[in-house]
């Protein structure tokens, strides 16, 4: 009997969804817009985070050693620095490697090569390229290195030149995270409120039908369940719509995000996370549609 009731209420919900054409379209549209706002906020937030982290990853500090410092000493210093908890990675760049990199940067420019030939010796210094776990830790690291036992072996640390840029970037990252999080909460709340009120209006449009159903002796299950299923259909339909909107948006934003995200741009991000995004939208849409319907219908279920 329960299976029969479920089947009947499911069929009723499906019939309602199709037969109330324009009402269903309006509700799905509103739900889709809300989900789109929420998902755009989240996707932009995630993308901004990825872009900022990529930029962050490019920040580093180079510690240049005096030309007379042996390689084994530098490597010994490196092994000591690896123990610092603020340090994410350290790479050793020998003089020869530095020269190769310099030549590559200059695109093997003949004038630069000629100038190097005239100097004779490799003028470049060996260095340790250090990456911190977070940008605000470079100060601590460079300070510790400057006061260490091997400070006299150090020719220069290039942190000071980039300090203000790094600090500005750190502030931007923190601001974006804070603002993004706050905006995200606000948009999610707005999205939920819009959906809830749209579905309340839909329920209001069905007000007379609830009255009729009660009069013919329909129990709350027979009244409520079709609208629960209708809420599910709204959620599914809007999830599909939003996936289309998101694809269009990502195509629009692709040129701006080209190269900022590992793997390409925001379109590649969309496709590589397709099932996660769609699954989340489906879940959110169905939850929002169904819960709003259940709450909105309660006032009409008084017997």
């Amino acid at each position, binding site marked *: *009997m329960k299976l*029969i*009731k479920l089947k*009947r209420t499911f069929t009723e919900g499906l*019939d*309602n969804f199709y*037969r*109330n054409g324009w009402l269903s379209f309006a509700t799905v549209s509103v739900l889709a817009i809300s989900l789109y706002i929420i998902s755009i906020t989240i996707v932009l937030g995630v993308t901004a985070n990825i872009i900022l982290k990529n930029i962050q990853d490019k920040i580093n500090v180079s510690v240049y050693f005096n030309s007379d410092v042996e390689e084994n000493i530098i490597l010994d210093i490196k092994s000591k620095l690896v123990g610092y908890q603020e340090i994410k990675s350290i790479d050793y760049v020998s003089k020869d490697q530095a020269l190769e990199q310099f030549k590559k940067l200059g695109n093997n420019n003949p004038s630069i090569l000629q100038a190097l030939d005239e100097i004779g010796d490799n003028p470049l210094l060996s260095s340790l390229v250090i990456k911190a776990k977070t940008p605000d830790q470079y100060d601590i690291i460079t300070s510790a290195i400057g006061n260490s036992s091997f400070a006299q072996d150090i020719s220069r640390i290039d942190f000071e030149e980039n300090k203000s840029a790094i600090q500005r970037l750190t502030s931007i990252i923190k601001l974006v995270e804070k603002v993004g999080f706050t905006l995200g909460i606000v948009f999610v709340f707005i999205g939920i409120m819009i959906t809830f009120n749209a579905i309340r209006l839909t329920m209001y449009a069905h007000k*007379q*039908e609830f*009255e*009729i*159903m*009660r*009069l*013919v*002796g*329909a*129990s*709350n299950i*027979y009244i409520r369940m079709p609208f629960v299923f209708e809420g599910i259909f709204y959620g599914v339909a809007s999830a599909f719509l939003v996936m289309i909107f998101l694809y269009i948006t990502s195509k629009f934003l692709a040129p701006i995000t080209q190269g900022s995200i590992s793997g390409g741009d925001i379109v590649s991000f969309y496709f590589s996370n397709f099932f996660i995004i769609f699954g989340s939208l489906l879940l959110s849409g169905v939850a929002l549609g169904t819960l709003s319907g259940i709450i909105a219908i309660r006032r009409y279920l008084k*017997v």
Partner: protein
Amino acid sequence: MLKFENVSKIYPGDFVALEDIDIAIKKGEFVSIVGHSGSGKSTFLKLVYAEEQPTTGTVYFNERPLSAINRKHLPFYRRNIGTVFQDFKLLPKKTAYENVAYALEVSDGMMDEIKELVPEILDIVGMGNKMEKYPHQLSGGEQQKVCLARALVCKPLVIIADEPTGNLDPTSTWEIIQLLVKINSMGTTVLLASHNKGIVDKLNRRVIELEKGKLIRDNAKGKYDSNGKEKIATDEKRKQTV
């Protein structure tokens, strides 16, 4: 079958819709309820199908007080009562067949039963050839017939008809009334609230008159209007019988 014992209904704002109603209705009776607009006819009927609860007093159905019925069991109680209204109250997105079938579905009727009974009932009310029509495709009289079919399909003990012919032309009006009489002849109790003097007089059945919420007349075989002397005498006689 139905009994009102000192029933009063007072709405917020101290509006007295019904006052000290004492009446009993037997199984199989056809009762016309008459009175001016605002006299309390609809409130009386709402108390029967438990859309409203009395402020004081008790309404009994088959000797069971309606106030004892748990709210979640009220839908089961209402399946004993078929209702027909002036504004039809058909589900607009369902065909005539589906509207009637709905009443059986919510009573947990089996599919075979529904497939057999619904066309039969629609045939009885003369709507057998319009089962697939939606309410907006039917005339007023046809819609009311579908409502009657829906009211009948669960084989109720009581049919409540609140101004069922209010929006209908004379021909349709008599068709509906004849159907109600036919239903009553098969043993179903019928409560008909009506402004239509012609119908009530022609029916010549029991008439209850309400005025400003009070029961002022109860004639075993009455007319829509009655003289003053008859009112009081019949009231006393009626009370003794109850």
